[in-house]
């Protein structure tokens, strides 16, 4: 069935200055890594609001990676230090609420660590593959669809309406 060919959906929130550049290096160095991961580039790991994570889970992500510059290497000096405290709480909270710790992982990858980026992504993909699809949020989504069958489940406000030329 579907289960056999199932491939996890992984969303990676990466910072512009280190991890994104590291991922770029992995690409230009022709290093191979699983294609399950979709990168979302943000300016700083300190700028990733935990609601981004929740939204990604709502939209069907099976696992999430958050990655930024190594401590002391932040482009904005302290962004990753602030992030570190916040993520400690958020990770603990999600774990307590019943979301496996391995579904949300964190790393520091610098611009020169293309190889490390490949290792980190492979680890996350393997961990999530071992756990299987994220049933918890799927259940919430199904309940939403039964309760509101007319709504597609996608927030209209989140879609960039390019055709009408409307700004979001």
């Amino acid at each position: 069935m579907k289960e056999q060919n199932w491939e996890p959906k992984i969303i990676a929130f990466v910072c512009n200055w280190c991890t994104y550049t590291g991922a770029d290096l992995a690409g230009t160095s022709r290093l191979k890594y699983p294609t399950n991961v979709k990168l979302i580039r943000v300016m700083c790991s300190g700028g990733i609001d935990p609601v981004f994570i929740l939204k990604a889970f709502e939209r069907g992500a099976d696992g999430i990676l958050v990655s930024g510059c190594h401590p002391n290497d932040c482009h904005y000096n302290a962004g990753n230090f602030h992030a570190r405290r916040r993520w400690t709480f958020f990770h603990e909270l999600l774990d307590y609420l019943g979301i496996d710790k391995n579904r949300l992982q964190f790393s520091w990858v610098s611009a020169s660590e293309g190889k490390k980026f490949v290792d980190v992504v492979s680890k996350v993909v393997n961990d999530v593959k071992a756990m299987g699809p994220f049933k918890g949020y799927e259940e919430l989504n199904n309940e939403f669809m039964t309760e509101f069958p007319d709504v597609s489940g996608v927030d209209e406000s989140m879609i960039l309406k390019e055709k009408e030329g409307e700004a979001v």
Partner: protein
Amino acid sequence: MEELRKHAKELLENKTVAAILGYVEVDPKRTRPAVITKPEDASKLVFNEYCLNNLAVYLTKARIKNIAKQNGAVMKLGIVAKPCDIHSVIALIQESQLKREDIHIIGMNCHGVVKDFGMEFSGETLASKCVPCESHKPLYHDIVLGEEKQTPSVSDEVLAKIQAIEKMTYEERFEYFKNEFDKCIKCYACRAACPLCYCQRCITDKTIPRWIESSPHSRGNFSWNVVRAFHLSGRCIGCGECERACPMDIPLSLLNRKMAETAKEAYAYVSGRSLETPTLVGSYDVKDSDELFM
């Protein structure tokens, strides 16, 4: 009680404060919050085991702040506060929402309050927030009133429940909290009752983009309760007002207490205890644990 009334009357007569936030009696086992502005009304003030409200929530409200603004000058506001309410005031001052010099804290010695109005005060009816409480004397104050009495000692049920939840599997935990959050009707009473939820515009009210779905279905409820708990992590002082305000009896203290325990374990920090230290999530230390990161 007499000394409280006398002190309040003096403050209002001398124009030391513009108003006093305090409790007045509704019936012998029920009180309500009140703003006292006239010296003759000071005799209505009471303090007992039925003073459940955390009055610090009013200090950041525009309507209350306006009372203190008289003839272009800002006067002090007086507040009758239990030791735990004072922790809220400290947290608000730490987060630059208040100035210490604008507040006159009438600290009350406290030996606990009841779970709900109408109950006889005893170990059994002791509010769950009072069970682990260690501060029975006001930390910061302008005057301390009230007699010191022994708090009944009872077992900590909230902590026991948290430990029981931690022993569950991930699926069981998710199911448990999903069912609890399912009850939520998105009335935001938890937000309104919280002294530290002072944002002018809450993230759940933001619609472009709408991060948290506003209709009360399980998916939106889950997001809201996660975000509420997260935004209070390392800040919540554990006054328990959110849980008391919740009309659907969602055990919010299970979340708040857990995050407070996390702050204690990971950073040895307890919220609202010192005016000298910066807030936990508003500051950082380069030596913080790096365990979480690959």
